[in-house]
């Protein structure tokens, strides 16, 4: 662990970028508002195309990155890189959990006996 972060440095935190600067707050706010308005506008205008869904997916990923960078202030230098490492590790596990579950269960569903809506209603 980097010991340089443990040296007394006055009012700790600000030097480590824990609460960020005014400019990063406003950049983050404006970006996140734009990145929220566009997907809602797309969905509420009745778009259902694959292109619209892909666009909303990409906008969500970008917005998550913006929030992590500008609101949580996580970058490779925060806390000697430990939070960034933990974040990347968690992101990988999250992707494996979600994609893996959906993939496995989709194939499991394909191998099940088909059931009609009427049969389901009687369950």
């Amino acid at each position: 662990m980097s010991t340089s972060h443990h040296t007394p440095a006055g009012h700790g935190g600000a030097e480590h970028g824990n609460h960020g600067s005014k400019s990063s707050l406003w950049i983050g706010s404006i970006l996140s508002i734009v990145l929220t308005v566009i997907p809602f506008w797309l969905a509420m205008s009745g778009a259902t195309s694959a292109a619209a869904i892909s666009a909303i997916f990409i906008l969500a990923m970008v917005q998550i990155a913006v929030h992590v960078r500008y609101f949580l202030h996580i970058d490779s230098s925060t806390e000697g890189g430990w939070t960034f490492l933990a974040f990347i590790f968690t992101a990988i596990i999250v992707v494996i959990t979600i994609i893996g579950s959906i993939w496995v269960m989709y194939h499991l569903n394909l191998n099940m006996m088909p059931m009609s809506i009427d049969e389901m209603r009687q369950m």
Partner: protein
Amino acid sequence: MSADLISKPTGKNASGRVYHRPEDDHHHAGGATMVGFFIYLMSDALIFASLFAAYGVLSRNYAGGPSPREIFELPLVALNTGLLLASSITFGIGMQAMVAGNVRGVIRWLIITGILGAAFVGVELHEFSGLIAEGATPQRSGFLSAFFTLVATHGTHVTFGIIWLVTLVFQLNKRGLTPDNTRRILCLSMFWHFLDIIWIGVFTFVYLFGAMR
């Protein structure tokens, strides 16, 4: 190596004992606590990942019940998203006040953040009660079970965040920006922004994709 790390913050005594003076903590509001709290948030993210995975698997299992398109009201979700996003921004402004050492400013912005958070929970409960009144209860279908579990878990987190926030306001009012309180605000700030990030996933994958299906 551990002895080296432990003796470093005090550095003055040769006995290897660690003495904590009140002003010691002040040098680093957070320190290992910030990393530790971040690790907690990441483990919380894994809980949400499994709930998202369960929703992804069950999101088309309607069992003859209502589909997302029939029950989701996007204007209500847009309002909720706006409230939570605004609360994240007001918390950010509160953090700026903390950097400036302005206790009154921190308390004011925390209260505004708390009100926005409470409004978010209120709108969500209103939505839930509407759904349940329509018969779209958690036990109706796999889709609704997964939906209520995921969204209500997030809502519960926000509720506990508000309780934490109110506690902090009282602490700040009584003791001001002490090192302990500064550390608590830093942790709550991470918690609050984290919940906003989870909500991005909820409104995108649950509400928007559900309404477009």
